[in-house]
């Protein structure tokens, strides 16, 4: 079986006053249908740029992006975002404030028949556990609820691929972990293919089948969570994983009120 998504040696760069600044260098990866991948890295490692390129918001300097055998982007052409069958969940959720939850979810179903559309909206409300909230407006919802609406809206037009840009970063720590598992369950249940971008190792390990560690525009290791943890490819990965794990551990200890035990006393 061939991969659903293929990035073939893509390079991206930002145009600044002083010239081109490379952001992603000859990056390649393949993703199977139904699997969930995660790009993990510090801010500035180029992971969000990759996501934006798949969505069609960034022009490629070299390489190509293929979805189900169709070329979405290469150095000379770029299919418009609205024609890509790619869904995206944004870091700030980007819910339309002037539309109710139902109309937000139904936004991408404009061309569907009315009865089919409302059935699909109800189905998604149920899927994310927000039955009965369809008439409410985004500002009336909690952060976690807004996030579910954003997920439902992205899934509504049945995209072939779902992109999630730091989806949990606006939530508090408790909700975050809980929701990461919940999102994974939803995606797996419906057989969706997804790429998540995050700087948070706990999120990555909670949700992804396969993780790519990014550094300075390249993926330094592409592996399962288990593989990363036990066979880090180099010192960078090993340090990154360990530091992240340590910090997560400390943060959790701190939240439990064990500041002293976590070595944070006096801070």
């Amino acid at each position, binding site marked *: 079986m061939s991969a659903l998504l293929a990035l073939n040696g893509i390079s991206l760069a930002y145009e600044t006053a002083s010239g081109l600044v490379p*952001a992603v260098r000859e990056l390649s990866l393949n993703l199977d249908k139904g699997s969930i991948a995660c790009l993990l890295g510090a801010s500035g490692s180029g992971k969000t740029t990759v996501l934006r390129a798949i969505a069609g918001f960034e022009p490629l*300097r070299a390489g190509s992006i293929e979805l189900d055998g169709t070329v979405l982007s290469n150095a*000379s052409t770029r299919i418009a975002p609205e024609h890509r069958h790619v*869904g995206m969940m944004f870091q700030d959720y980007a819910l*339309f404030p002037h539309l109710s939850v139902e109309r937000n979810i139904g936004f991408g179903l404009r061309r569907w028949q009315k009865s089919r559309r409302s059935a699909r909206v109800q189905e998604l409300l149920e899927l994310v556990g927000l039955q009965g909230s369809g008439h409410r407006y985004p500002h009336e919802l909690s952060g976690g609820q807004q996030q579910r609406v954003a997920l439902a809206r992205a899934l509504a037009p049945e995209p072939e691929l779902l992109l999630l840009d730091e989806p949990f970063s606006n939530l508090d720590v408790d909700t975050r972990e809980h929701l990461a598992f919940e999102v994974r369950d939803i995606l797996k249940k419906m057989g969706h293919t997804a790429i998540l971008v995050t700087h948070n190792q706990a999120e990555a390990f909670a949700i992804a089948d396969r993780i790519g560690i990014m550094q300075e525009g390249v993926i330094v290791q592409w592996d399962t969570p288990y593989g990363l943890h036990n066979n880090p490819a180099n010192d960078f990965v090993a340090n990154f994983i360990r530091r992240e794990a340590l910090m997560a551990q400390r943060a959790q200890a701190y939240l439990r009120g064990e500041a002293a035990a976590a070595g944070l006393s006096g801070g």
Partner: protein
Amino acid sequence: MASTTKARLDQAAEAGQTAAAADLSRNSSQVRQPRGSRYAPGLSNRLRNMLRAGIGWPSAALLIAACVLAPVAALGWFALQGDSSHWTHLLQFVLPTAMTNTVLLLLGVGVLVACLGVGSAWLVTAYDFPLRRTLSWALLLPLAVPTYIVAFAYLDILHPIGPVQGLIRDILGYDSPRQFRLPDLRSLPGAIFLLGFVLYPYVYLSTRIMFSTQAASLLEAARVLGESGRSVFFRVALPMARPAIAVGVSLALLETLNDIGASEFLGIQTLTVSVYTTWVTRNDLAGAAQIALAMLAIVAVLILAERHGRRKQRYAGNQRARAMCPERLSGLKALAACLLGCIPVAVGFLAPAAYLLNETLKRLHQVGVVSDQLLQSAWNTVSIAFCATLLTLACGLVVAWAVRCARQASSLAHRLAQAGARVATTGYALPGTVLAIGLLTPFIMFDHVLAAMLQLLGNADPGLILMGSGTALVLAYAIRFMAISIGSLEAGLARIPPSMEQAARLLGESPAGALRRVHLPLLRPALGAAALLVFVDAMKELSATLLLRPVNFDTLATWLYAEAARGTYEEGAVAALAIVLAGLIPVILLARTQFKMSR
């Protein structure tokens, strides 16, 4: 985040560090050796990039910018058409007087608005006294009184046999104007006095915002360092407010340059008045264009001053700043501060407004009804202002949206759209007469060609179609007020995060679809505010209207001008009051939005 990316990558590149490119076919966890990177696509690629970069919206924005520039270009071309005898005549008889008058007027008004504006802003920022809160918005009220109306009103109020001078004579015991009279208002100092008192709010507004949003900590620091109140003002507040003062003064002076009514009523032969008379009475278009070019030179200086001021202002963040705590005054000092603060409001707004109200009531009492001509011109005003508002908003939306979209399309498109926006927003600086002369020539030519073609086809002479239908007028308003709509809509769009259109795009909408379904509903308040501001400004406009209106077509402003020119003050006050009342709406809007955070 972008800057960290850049810093990191620059570092990496300089160190010659070749990053590893991983081949990420499944199950492979080994790292391949780097193959070196290439980021310079070929020329043909670049070309294709440009074409697919979404040039449509930026092109529309550039087209609008070209329409704004066209009158200036036409002006230059026509100025060159005049023969040299024109020039010598102009240089000998017209330009020296007009230029001197204009420069003196600008200097005088500049000094007066700076003093009044900064003084009143400091008064309500640094001191607390009775009526302070009321004054802090009431000081904006003179903005509602156009320059030609304040001159119209004061000519009567301060007339030698008018109420004020009569009162003074009664008090001093004189019984005839021959024995005692105030200096004549129809003079350069008189014009400076009147224009200064209605235009100072531009300076007041920009300085007040400056003082109240970022002065607090600095001024308090100065206080703690042992400076007295007065020296804090001169050593810290005033230098800090310089960019804001520059912006405010330039705007006030552009307004002065634009003014035709006040200088005409007060008998000051300024450049603006010369342009008007050269065309209307001497029918000399080339001459008018030449004087207009001289005015453009002054405009250019003022724009540069304003832009310079704004650039300096930009770094003064204003979100988190806290207002300074004013010093409480009591007793005589409080009374003095209160009276001092009331003077600009009384002179610039209360007195003329009360006069106009009184005259209107008297007129209505005597006659009972307003004339049909006045109603007709009111209707003309509203309908033409309405058309102009629609056009201005539509153009503003195209330009603002082009800038927004292009940011994501490509840097070339972005640069084009921004250049378009910058040009399109300079129309506000063109004095109405200059703009009118620039539009007049192409429109008349076009109308003649059109008429000739229609006559060839066997029709009767249709006359001047575009000029006669008011098309030129609507276009002039749109050019002059486009900055308002672009500015307002850009600010409105800036509050909508870019993820909104990205979300809409990924849910299957084209850019235009995203604009229609997401941004237009979210922009409704900004559109409403812009519409109101443009509408009222179009209602008040006099200098371009005088030159471009169709024959026998009067707006309230031109009606008032004609009454004043004839010296028949019959219904002028009614028209003036209507304009002032309409002008109050944007002032109230401005006061509410600007001072919400800084009370």
